[in-house]
């Protein structure tokens, strides 16, 4: 066994891994070390990020099985021979879905669960629970029930639960992918504080824009191979899905590339309004809510909402976790019974993507899922069309249950968007998706809108909204507000502003739009000079 040296807390050497019954290796000859501070692992969907994190606490291979080679040392222990339950003392783990990992009903009980498992004396538990809750920034949640918390709050409870054992390593698997910007900021801030205090924090994320300015080391995982980790500056060119500021900086040849909007603001060129996008033409009424009031046993979320959408229009619903986006989306589709008011839709098939794509996918292949929808819709559309448009050709004959979360999301989208639906309702469609998949979805939605479909999607993904929306509606408990065009809704100091939007109050909010404006202004600038 190789002894750990210096500040290393974990060493992975030459690890190859294959899941049971998988035809391809999930990890191929991975080697890296983890020390105190924050390490970010970026990369596309299905690239192996989650698998690498599960190496750290032994879930791979102890829980998942499969065949593994190489060496994994965690705090000097051979992780391949040490049970996960034992490694839990050294490695805290936070899963992607804050709902799925909760095992107790109360916040303190949840945080104390790991302490109970490792037989920490009850006399010590209360102090450890309070310490972990303070470190995760959730001291104010004491006494609350888990089912009353927002997604961001639940995720920080999960972090506190992992911290209660005072682990030396904290691994987080896409911890912000289901959170609104405010919730994500709080989670990342908690991680930053822990890293500063000496914990080795390892975070996997598809999109690392919010992490770059706080990350000590950055690695990129793709097709089972790891690049790095290295410094952020050294690894930026290897990012598969670089954040907006990096794209803009590279296009405008900024050096060094700024990692925050505040730094970029000093470099951003002034833009005039000449190249601003014109408002899209409006079509016929496609759906309408009148005085819609809806909610659950716990309270009212929509209170007398009046909202309508037209054919050819893409409406994006944004707002805080638990604010009512899903309820509004379902109300539009007639899937949620209104307490009062009316919901009207023009005739035609409704396509609905729920938050959990698993409920859609249970046929033998992705192609069979698409063919099923097409046959039921009595459409002449070939199944291969939408499979190709969503970049799923290589996965078309795979069983959906064997795909990564991002790939499953795309498969679910293909399954519901086939057959020319007239009304498209998507709930967090880019969850777990990498850049290429997001671009394919954006193009597909624009094409469907151009063909006359009305699209409504609920998302926290500001960049998706900036790319695809005709208008943005902000949904908060008891208040639904039409915030207008993406340029108005996603810029300046708005809660959901994109990084580019923060540079340009009033827009533009995408990199392409900035570059178009610069290109459009170039002749007149040349003439003036």
């Amino acid at each position, binding site marked *: 066994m190789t002894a750990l040296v210096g500040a290393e807390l974990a060493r992975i050497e030459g690890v190859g891994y294959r899941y049971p019954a998988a035809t391809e290796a999930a990890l191929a000859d991975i080697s890296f070390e983890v020390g105190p501070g924050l390490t970010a692992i970026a990369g596309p969907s299905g690239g192996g990020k989650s698998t690498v994190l599960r190496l750290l*606490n032994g*879930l791979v291979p*102890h*829980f998942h099985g499969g065949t593994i080679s190489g060496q994994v040392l965690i705090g000097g222990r051979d992780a391949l021979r040490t*049970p*996960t*339950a*034992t490694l*839990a*003392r050294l490695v805290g*783990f936070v*899963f992607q*879905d804050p709902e*799925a*990992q*909760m*095992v*107790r*009903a*109360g916040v*303190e*009980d949840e945080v*104390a*669960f*790991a*302490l*109970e*498992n*490792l*037989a*920490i*004396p*009850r006399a010590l*538990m*209360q102090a450890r*629970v309070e310490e972990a809750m303070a470190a995760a920034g959730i001291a104010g949640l*004491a*006494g609350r*029930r888990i*089912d009353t918390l927002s997604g961001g709050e639940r995720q920080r409870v999960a972090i506190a*639960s*992992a911290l209660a054992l005072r682990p030396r390593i904290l691994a987080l698997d896409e911890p912000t992918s289901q959170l609104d910007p405010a919730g994500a900021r709080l989670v990342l801030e908690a991680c930053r504080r822990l890293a500063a205090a000496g914990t080795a924090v390892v975070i996997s994320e598809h999109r690392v824009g919010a992490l770059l300015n706080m990350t000590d080391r950055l690695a990129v995982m793709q097709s089972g191979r790891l690049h790095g980790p290295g410094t952020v500056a050294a690894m930026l060119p290897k990012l598969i899905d670089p954040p907006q500021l990096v794209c803009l900086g590279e296009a405008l040849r900024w050096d060094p590339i700024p990692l925050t909007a505040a730094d970029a603001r000093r470099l951003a060129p002034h833009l005039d309004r000449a190249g601003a996008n014109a408002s899209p033409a409006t079509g016929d009424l496609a759906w309408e809510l009148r005085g819609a009031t809806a909610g659950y*046993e716990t309270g009212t979320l929509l209170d007398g909402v009046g909202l309508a959408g037209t054919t050819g229009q893409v409406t994006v619903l944004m707002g805080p976790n638990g604010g009512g986006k899903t309820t509004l989306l379902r109300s539009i*589709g007639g*899937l949620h019974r209104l307490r009062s008011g009316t919901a009207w839709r023009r005739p035609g*098939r409704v*396509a*609905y993507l*729920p938050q*959990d794509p*698993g*409920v*859609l996918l*249970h046929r033998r292949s992705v192609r069979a899922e698409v063919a*099923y*929808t097409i046959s*039921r*819709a009595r459409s002449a559309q070939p199944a291969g069309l939408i499979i190709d448009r969503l970049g799923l050709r290589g996965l078309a004959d795979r069983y959906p*249950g064997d795909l990564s979360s991002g790939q499953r999301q795309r498969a679910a989208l293909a399954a*519901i968007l086939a057959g020319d639906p007239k009304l498209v309702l998507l709930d967090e469609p880019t969850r777990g998706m990498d850049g290429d998949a997001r671009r394919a979805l954006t193009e597909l939605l624009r094409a469907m809108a151009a063909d006359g479909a009305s699209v409504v999607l609920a998302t926290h993904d500001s960049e998706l909204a900036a790319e695809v929306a005709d208008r943005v509606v902000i949904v908060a408990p008891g208040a639904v507000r039409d915030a207008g065009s993406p340029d108005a809704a996603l810029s300046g100091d708005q809660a959901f502003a994109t990084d580019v939007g923060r540079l340009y109050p009033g827009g533009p909010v995408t990199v392409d739009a900035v570059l178009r404006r610069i290109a459009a202004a170039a002749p007149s600038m040349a003439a003036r000079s």
Partner: protein
Amino acid sequence: MTRRGLHPRTVAAWSAAAIAVIILANNPVYRALVALVALNLLVAQRRPGTSLRTIIGFLSVFALFTMAYNPLISHGGAHQLARLPEFLPGIGGAVTLESIVFGAAAAVGFLAAALAVTPLALVLDPTELLEAMPVAMHGTATALSAALNLVPTIGRSFRRVREAESLRGGGRRGPLSLLDVVVPVALTTIESSITLAEAMEARGYGSGPRTHFRDASFELADCAVIAAALGAVLVLLAARLAGTPLDWYPFPTVALPTVSPVAVAGCLLLAAPVLLPVAGPARARAAGPA
């Protein structure tokens, strides 16, 4: 912090006693009593946010299936009501009143058994059950906890899968629509339970003896409920040993079941959790710091 509501081991003991009563007496009257008592317990003690409607719906469908299936495969009995053609493989033959009644009695037994264990899922949090298991049985407890997590998840999955299917044009309505969603619901709920098991493993569950954040001592009500549940089993056992008829079969000629007041009293002892002043869901167990 004083724990509120029934102790997890009390609920587990109650379920075990109810199952024992069902095993000791196959008379549908006693089994129906157990089912009613269990239903009362679920209504009074189930956790906030859990729904009985879907579970009852599922159980009813299975019970109806049992009732309908039995007359097709069992052809004994004195009162022939109809006759299916002999060339029908497996189901051809007489359809008798006795086989229909027997199917109904079997359905009552199935309902009673299912309702007897449902409190483990709807009254307890999935991991509260862990508290009820001896340390040496942590592996079993993990599996049981994950399995019981299926019960509330099934209802949610059922609604979501059926909705997704109908929006994609899966148009069957009524009982037949169940056939379309059984496999997806099973896969979705199993996946959810695997995720829960993975989360528990990652947080050290199964590493050895556990301690408890909350005071896990028994209260007077727990002792009373356990004593009553044990009493129910002993009464039925004593009645059986004393030769009191606890079983009932409709063959060869259907007749009303004999009912023993002693056995009825034994079954009613299981109603202790409902009759005693035990904290219900309004007095949440998890509220407040330790």
